[in-house]
């Protein structure tokens, strides 16, 4: 595909293709989003990618909305809509047909086998997401400490994640990070 072509078109095929490979959901596709948005297409800087991730986590709604933010950055409101639909529509069409197919053929063991096979892959992808986001976000040792502290708190307690995000924001505002 020609990278000089219409950016809307680039968004559509980039995220449309990505959605079919997003095993484990939107968070598993973050490394690929970063690779394309920062390294390949130069739509945004590393810092802007980290900002976009932060905004998507602060917003209500599914995690997939990070692509809405990337789309807006590339081509405004139209870009936001196209990126969101491209990331969602191919897989929901697939989900619709697979669920209908499985509704007819019960007792198949393939779904269980495929699920067992895919879980480690999606976890590997999410681990890679965490690593890449840590490399873009944690530029100082205090920032790394905030990440580690948030991880431990979230693991050990049942505190609402939103409070941890807001606490991070306050620390950032105070200039700790």
């Amino acid at each position: 595909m020609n990278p000089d072509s219409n950016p809307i078109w680039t968004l559509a095929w980039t995220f449309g293709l990505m959605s079919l490979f997003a095993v484990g959901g939107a968070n598993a596709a973050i490394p690929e989003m970063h690779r394309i948005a920062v390294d390949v297409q130069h739509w945004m800087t590393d810092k802007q990618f980290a900002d976009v991730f932060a905004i998507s986590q602060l917003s209500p709604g599914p995690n997939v909305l990070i692509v809405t933010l990337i789309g807006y950055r590339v081509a405004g409101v139209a870009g936001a809509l196209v990126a969101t639909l491209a990331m969602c529509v191919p897989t929901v069409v697939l989900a619709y047909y697979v669920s209908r197919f499985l509704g007819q053929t019960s007792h198949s063991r393939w779904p269980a086998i495929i699920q067992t096979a895919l879980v480690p892959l999606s976890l590997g992808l999410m681990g890679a997401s965490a690593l890449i986001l840590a490399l873009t976000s944690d530029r100082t040792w205090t920032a790394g400490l905030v990440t580690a502290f948030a991880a431990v708190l979230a693991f050990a307690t049942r505190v609402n994640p939103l409070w941890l995000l807001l606490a991070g924001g306050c620390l950032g505002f105070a200039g700790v990070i």
Partner: protein
Amino acid sequence: MPPDSPPAAIPAPDLPTSIPPGLTALFVAFAKMSLAGFGGVLVFARRGIVDRHCWMTADQFNETYALCHFLPGPNIVNLSVVFGARFRGIPGAVAAFAGLLGPPVVIVTVLAALYAHFGEIDALRRILAGVSCAAVGLLITAVFRMMMPLIRRRDLVGLVFLAAVFSAIGLLRLPLQAVLLVAIPLSIGITFAMRRRAAA
């Protein structure tokens, strides 16, 4: 097949299980779940569908979610479509999809516009940097929580695949498609072979 009763305008909290949700009810219910869902909608989806509206039993919900989890793409978006289609066919799927994504997309687009205007302000940059540090911590925790079953089962094959994908994507920064086109058939093949050997 669901009877063609007129859709309820507002989802009543005590909707009996026998009445399938109408299109408006689907849209409103998914919009509410989505807007309540900071950092993941799944918990709110389960609460709304199973506990509040009794549209599915917990087992049915888990089954549907498992299906949507092994399919690619955003799980909860897949769930909205499968769920909506089950009750109201394609119009139901569209209503649930639009409810789940419509309102938050508007909010996020407004935030994106604000960021485009004010993103260079130093205080905002510092705040977002702090938020993203904490969000990375949350992601790490989520990954560890989901890894625990693999570790507990001493699922060596699974852990090897996990490490291989992590290295290929996170360290070598290889393209997603290339990695998965190798990893998915390999992992399914090995899982299948091990099941057969265990069964034999």
